[in-house]
């Protein structure tokens, strides 16, 4: 316990952080709340001293707008696809990395590179990899491919697929996005899980060896349960990150959020909020609150599930 006479010192030390939090976090949150419930809000008329009425019209508008439902669907789909895939892949890679000695450091660095690379830049590289010739709405036929992915598939006798260009299917777009987001999410997850693995007491494995435990059982009965706090952490942060997906789509499809000819097809929640800020700040705020609500609920579900399954 801090001596009560000394408390003012503690407050002084905390002050810089508190002031910054108040200005850049608390105040915007309050403003978002107010704006979400303010009808026909615009910052210009607010400056002009206009009187607003309050209500839930913004929320109604957001939910009735069919583009929003599309955004919600895209966001949920990407979350549900990418979080499990990236977590399982990261677990497998982390376990493999942890069990080798030769080149471990080197490979660790390689796997970590995506984390320190700009996601827009990665997106452009992915776009090039999945590209085909022809990029206009009229050019719907896949004539010839230049992307490395289609070239590689060609080696196995698979016809070139229109992944991201004009006329591409929704399924192909989502497949590309899934690959990209998983790849982008791996380094952080590998890092966390590898750290967890390295802190596991080696004696558990010695004990398992003495008891003639098959490797697969060691993995499912010892490694995974002992890693469960880290697994819960990467799943929860993975879902939160997934719901905020935006820049990855911009990276591949540009800020039109879709292939040429069907712009907005891959728009996400954050994309919708960003698009609305220009003209409909009230709706953007309402959508932000809805997104917050969804993330909150999903995180609560995650936490309550992991409480039962996690062994700290």
């Amino acid at each position, binding site marked *: 316990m801090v001596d009560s006479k000394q408390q003012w010192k503690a407050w002084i030390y905390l002050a810089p952080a508190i002031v910054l939090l108040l200005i850049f976090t608390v105040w915007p949150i309050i403003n978002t709340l107010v704006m979400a419930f303010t009808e026909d809000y615009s910052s210009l008329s607010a400056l002009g001293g206009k009187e607003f009425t309050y209500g839930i019209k913004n929320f109604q508008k957001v939910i009735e707008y069919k583009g929003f439902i599309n955004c919600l669907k895209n966001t949920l789909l990407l979350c549900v696809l990418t979080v499990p895939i990236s977590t399982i892949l990261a677990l497998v890679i982390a376990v493999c990395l942890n069990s080798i000695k030769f080149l471990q450091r080197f490979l660790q660095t390689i796997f970590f590179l995506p984390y320190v690379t700009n996601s827009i830049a990665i997106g452009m590289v992915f776009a090039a990899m999945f590209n085909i010739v022809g990029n206009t709405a009229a050019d719907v036929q896949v004539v010839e491919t230049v992307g490395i992915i289609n070239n590689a598939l060609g080696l196995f006798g698979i016809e070139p697929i229109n992944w991201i260009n004009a006329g591409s299917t929704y399924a192909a777009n989502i497949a590309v996005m899934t690959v990209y987001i998983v790849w982008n999410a791996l380094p952080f997850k590998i890092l966390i899980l590898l750290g967890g693995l390295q802190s596991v007491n080696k*004696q558990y494995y*010695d*004990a398992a*060896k003495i*008891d*003639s*435990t098959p490797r697969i059982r060691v993995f499912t*009965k010892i490694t995974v349960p002992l890693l*469960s706090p880290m697994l819960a952490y990467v799943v929860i942060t993975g879902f939160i990150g997934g719901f905020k997906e935006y820049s990855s789509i911009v990276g591949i499809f540009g800020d039109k959020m879709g292939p040429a000819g069907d712009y907005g097809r891959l728009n996400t929640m954050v994309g919708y909020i960003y698009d609305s800020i220009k003209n409909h700040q009230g709706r953007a705020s309402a959508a932000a609150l809805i997104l917050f609500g969804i993330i909150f609920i999903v995180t609560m579900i995650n936490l309550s599930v992991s409480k039962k399954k996690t062994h700290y």
Partner: protein
Amino acid sequence: MKVELRNLTKIFPSRNKKVGGEVIAVNDFTFTIPDGTLVGLLGPSGCGKSTTLYMISGLQKPSSGQIFFGEEDVTELSPENRGVGLVFQNYALYPHMTVKQNIMFPLQNLKGADKLTKDQMLERALEAAKLVQIDDLMDRKPSELSGGQQQRVAIARALVKMPRVLLLDEPLSNLDARLRLQTREEIRRIQKETGITTVFVTHDQEEAMSISDMIVVMKTGIVQQVGKPQDIYDDPTNLFVAKFLGTPPINVFKGNVAGGKLYIGGAAVLDVPGVSDRDVTVGIRPEGFNLDENGALVCELSNVEVMGRDISIVSKNEASLNPVIRSIINSDSKIDATAKTVKYSLKPHKVFIFDAKTEERIHF
């Protein structure tokens, strides 16, 4: 199951390549552990006793030498196929499993003809738990158990698969003093009941003395002496063994032998016929002193501690290599605690003399 170690050697390569030099953790260890006995590997830290244990378990491969279980050469066998039970120093209980799941874990790995049904496993687990008296704790997690209880769970887990050999690595070092006494009796009882050949590692000589059928005293990877606890105590082969066993520790003096007499600080304290003249180190067990008015060994009295059954006398002598001399005398003897000096005669069978240079025992 008889366990035989033949010329077992373990060499660890140097970690620092620039400095070079390898560490010989265990050096040419040859010893046969008779079937059904409890053997203590005793020695100070870094003497290679744990390495020996891990080589028996298979977790470490010997650099040379062989290990036999009965007539079977298991040297190249991996730990999975040796059928040993190992209790780790800090137990290594799986923290996410209950006591029951921990004990049943080894049984669930059994394959082929040994495969058990769920009921059989439960029965075996309960049997093992009853043996170590934790059958009322089956649904707890290890974190909800005391150190002693965790220890028992670890022993039950090692015993449940009916190992050919049970190995215990410093089994008592994580327990408090009272629990240590109790648990070592418990280990003794369990070993007697199951009749499993058991090897345990300890640095505590009292622990090793009290429960082992046989003790192996080790120092810097080399076996110093093997034998029954009392035999080693009564007949140590060298100064190290004499010093390592016994509480209070043996009193050590600088001395010399001349004309068949042993001298400590100029006083002839004992006849040692047949020993040639030389400088020696003399070890006298605390119980090897008699209070004697005519005793030759005169010491400066510093303190008398009455402990009821015995009297412990702390005294000083210039020839002593220990800071003080501690003797234990039957409380029937009377001593004047205010006197300046105390005079002792010696019990010959409690006096050991060692060559001053080689520290090897000289029998007389």
